[in-house]
């Protein structure tokens, strides 16, 4: 049940983000559970291998930012920077506005409760 370990290579992270630790303007709207997908209408040829890998992964449907990070084996911080670039360039889109910092939606909680009761 232990998920495979993912090594985090600092130098590699530095190179693939172009040395930036400040993400593009889209990043503020990306949370761990923001759902992203590929638009499918931009060429991949111009992208470096890491970004291509992300776009290919997301061509199949929606994934959360955290899931993209897990699948491509990069830290969330790096993944967020790359996804923001890909949103800027039109390769990717975010499905939803980010959730509130402190969500208190009782309807959502009731739905979660129903869903959990259903799996008992």
């Amino acid at each position, binding site marked *: 049940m232990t998920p495979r370990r993912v090594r985090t290579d600092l130098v590699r992270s530095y190179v693939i983000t172009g040395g930036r630790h400040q993400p593009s303007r889209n990043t503020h709207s990306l949370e761990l*559970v923001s*759902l992203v997908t590929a638009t499918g209408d931009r060429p991949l040829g111009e992208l470096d291998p890491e970004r291509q890998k992300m776009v290919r992964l997301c061509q*199949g*449907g929606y994934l*959360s930012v955290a899931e993209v990070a897990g699948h491509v084996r990069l830290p969330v911080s790096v993944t967020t920077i790359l996804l923001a670039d890909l949103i800027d360039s039109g390769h990717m889109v975010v499905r939803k506005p980010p959730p509130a*910092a402190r969500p208190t939606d009782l309807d959502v*909680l009731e*739905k979660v*409760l129903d869903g959990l009761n259903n799996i008992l």
Partner: protein
Amino acid sequence: MASTTSSDSGIYVRDTVETAAKLLVVGPFGVGKTTLIGAVSEIEPLRTEEVMTQAGALVDDLKGVEDKRTTTVAMDFGRLTLAPDLVLYLFGAPGQQRFMRVAPVWQQLAHGAYGALVLADTRRLDASFDAMEMVEKHGLPYAVALNSFPDSPHFPEEEIREALDLSPETPLVDCDARDRASAARALIALVKHVHTYYREHLP
């Protein structure tokens, strides 16, 4: 790992999903976070790691390479499709002392979370204190689930509540993290509590 409403699109979230809800599963190393997440998740649990300086800053540039005082924080997570328009994400993270210094990761985890399930083990209840403090610091409502290991001693509920300094309304449940239904019941206790908490604390 199959769920009655689980995604039939493999690793992907259904196109119909409108809301992604987030809950945290916290506690010390080895207490059963990954096991519990795996027991209910419809996807193989995933892991990401973040490298931080000990001062708590995210490291993704060469300044961090020069500064050897870095630490790695791993989080595991799983997903559960609960309705055609709703997925639940469960993020597991350690509440160890060193983790307290890595505030950005905690902020990112706590941001948008409805609440937290704190896992504890009666052989070492104090090992869960750090996780409880972090959750309280972020203002998240929580429930405590006691995972019973073969040699975990049994104590009366009142003694455990006292040892953990739980307020009377905080749920305390027994749980076998390896069992899907048991894990789900612990999450249900948490979500019921969160619902009550927000109903009472909202204007």
